[in-house]
C-alpha cells in the first residue's frame, strides 16, 4: 500500500499516538460519570477523540490521491540543532545547572553564548560581525530588562558578585 500523502500520514500517526497516550494517562485518574466528572473524564474523552481523528487522517492519507504526494522533505537539522542549543545554553548559563555543578553565569555571558550558537544556524558565520551583534544585544538587554524594566536577573557570574 502506498502512502498518498506523507504529511497527512505522519500527522495522523502523531495524533493517534498522542491521543492514546493521553487517554491511557487519563485512565489512571478517577473517571466518574457525567453528573460528577472526575479528573480523568474530559481528558479521556478528548484522548479517544484525538486518536480517532488521527486514525481517520492516516486512512485518508493512504486512500486519497494528492498531486505530488505531499512530501515532508528534508529536516533542517542545522538550524534546528543550533537554535534549540542556543536556547538551552542560555538557560544553563543564566540560571546555572545544578546536576553538573555549573554555577549561574549571569545574563551577559548567556547573551554572548546565545548569539554565537544561534548564529551558527545561519548560512554565513562572520566572527567579528557576531561579536558586535552580541555586544549590541547585551547592551540593549541590559538597558531594557535590567535598568528599565528592573527584571530580577543575575547580570554577572554569581561567584564574582557574591
Amino acid at each position: 500500500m502506498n502512502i498518498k500523502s506523507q504529511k497527512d500520514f505522519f500527522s495522523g500517526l502523531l495524533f493517534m499516538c498522542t491521543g492514546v497516550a493521553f487517554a491511557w494517562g487519563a485512565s489512571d485518574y478517577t473517571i466518574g460519570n457525567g453528573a460528577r466528572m472526575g479528573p480523568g473524564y474530559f481528558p479521556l474523552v478528548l484522548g479517544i477523540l484525538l486518536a480517532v481523528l488521527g486514525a481517520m487522517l492516516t486512512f485518508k492519507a493512504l486512500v486519497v490521491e494528492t498531486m505530488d504526494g505531499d512530501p515532508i522533505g528534508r529536516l533542517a537539522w542545522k538550524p534546528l540543532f543550533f537554535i534549540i542549543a542556543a536556547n538551552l545554553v542560555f538557560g544553563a548559563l543564566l540560571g546555572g545547572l545544578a546536576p553538573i555543578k555549573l554555577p549561574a553565569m549571569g545574563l551577559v555571558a548567556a547573551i554572548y553564548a546565545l548569539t554565537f550558537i544561534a548564529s551558527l544556524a545561519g548560512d554565513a558565520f562572520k566572527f567579528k560581525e557576531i561579536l558586535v551583534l552580541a555586544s549590541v544585544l547585551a547592551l540593549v538587554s541590559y538597558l531594557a530588562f535590567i535598568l528599565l524594566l528592573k527584571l530580577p536577573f543575575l547580570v554577572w557570574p554569581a561567584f564574582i558578585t557574591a
Partner: protein
Amino acid sequence: MDLIANLSLGFGVAFTAQNLMYAFVGCLLGTLIGVLPGIGPLATIAMLLPATYALPPVAALIMLAGIYYGAQYGGSTTAILVNLPGESSSVVTVIDGYQMARQGRAGPALAAAGLGSFFAGCVGTLILAAFAAPLTELAFKFGPAEYFSLMILGLIGAVVLASGSLLKAVGMIVLGLLLGMVGTDVNSGVARFTFDTPELTDGIGFIVIAMGVFGYGEIISNLSKHESERQVFTAKVSGLMPTKEDFKNMLPAVLRGTTLGSILGILPGGGAVMAAFAAYTLEKRTRLRPGEVPFGKGNIRGVAAPESANNAGAQTSFIPLLTLGIPPNAVMALMVGAMTIHNIQPGPQVMTSNPELFWGLIASMWIGNAMLVVLNLPLIGIWIKLLSVPYRWLFPAIVLFCAVGVYSTNNNTFDIWMVGLFGMVGYLFHKLGMEPAPLLLGFILGPMMEEYLRRALLLSRGDWSVFLTRPLSAGLLAAALVLLVLVLMPSVKSKREEAFIED
C-alpha cells in the same frame, strides 16, 4: 446618550500622557514587526507579555492592542514593496499590491492600504463601542451550558476558517485542549499529566507554547530556506497620492472590505487573516468597471479591500473577548493571558468592574489608528531601510528575546527547557503542515471548556440534553452545525480551497 458618555470616559483615560505613550509604543512596535517578515503579532505579544507585568493594566492592554492592529498596517508595506507578506493577514495584498509597485504605483497602493485601514479601524472601533454594552447584557444571561456551546461554536469557527485540511485543524484543536489539561485539576486537586514534576502543576505556560511553536518553530523553518528565497528587494516609491480615478475605485472596495471584516472579526475563529481572504475573494467576484485593471495585474481594489477588512477584523475581534471573555483567535487568547496577569478576569464583568479599562482600551484604539496613519505614510522610507537589515542579525535577536521573555515570566530555567521542547514540536508541526493557531486557541479554551461542561452537567444531573433544551445553547450549537455543514458541502469546499491556494 450612554455611548457618548462612555466614550468620553474612555477618551479621558486614553488621553493621559502615559497611555498615549504606550499606545504610540504599541503602534510603533506593531508596525515594525508587521514590516519585518517572519515575526508576527502573536510572537511579539508573547515576547512582550512578561514586560507588561510592571505596567498598570490599562497601559499594558493599550500597548498590546496597538501591536495587534499596528501589525495589520505594517504588513501591507512589506507586501506592496517587496512582494512578501509581512503578516499572514497581508498575504492577499501581495497579489495586486506588488504589481502596482512594479508599475511605479507603490505610493497610491500604500496610501490606499493606509487610508482604507484607517477608515476600517474607525468603523471597527465604533462598532466595538456600540455593540459592547448590549452584548454584555446578553452575556449575563449565559449559563454554563451556553458558554460551553459558544466555545464549541468558536472552535468549529476556527477550524472552518483555518487554511488546509479540516481534519488536521480539528486534530490540532483537540491536541490543544489536551495540552490545556496538564496541571492541577481545579475540582479534585489532582495533578494531571505532570510526571511528578513540580513545575508542571500550574500547567504548561501559555507563553512557553506560543514562543516555542511560533517563535522558534518559525525561525527554524525560515532558516531552512535558502537565502535567495528570503531575499528582499526594494522598489522605488514615488508619489503618494492616489488619483481621482483610484479613489472612485477604492471607495466601494473599502466599504465592502470594512463590512465584511467587521462581521468576520466578531465571529469566533475569524479575525484579521480570514477577513482579508474573504474580502479579496468578494472583490474578485464583483464586475470590473470599464477600463479598470484586472485583478492580479495591479488593481487598487485588490489592495484597499483586504487591507480594510483585516483592520476592521482586528478591531471587532476584541468584542467576544471583552464581552464574553472568550478569545476568538490566537492573538486574543494572548490578550486573555495579559488580562489574567493583571488579575482581570475577562468577561462581561469587565465593563462594570473596570469601566475605565474597558472604555479606555476602546478609545485608545481610535487614537492608535490615527497615530498609525501619521506614522505610516511619512515613514515609508524608513520602513524600506529597515527591510534591508539582514536576517542573520535579526534571528539571534529574536531567539534572545524569546528566551528572556520565557525566563522572566517565572524566573525559572524550567520554562527554558520547555520552550526548547516546544520549538522542536513547532518545527515538526511546520514540516507536517499542521497549523499551530488552532492548537493555541484550544489550549486556552481547554480548562474553561472542561469547567463549564462540568458545571452544566452537574446542574442537569448528568443529562446531556441540557445543551439542546436551553434555547440560547441550542441556537449556538445549531450555528456550529450549520458552519460545519457549509464547509463540508462540495461547492463551498472547493471554493474554500481555491481561496487559500491563491497565496
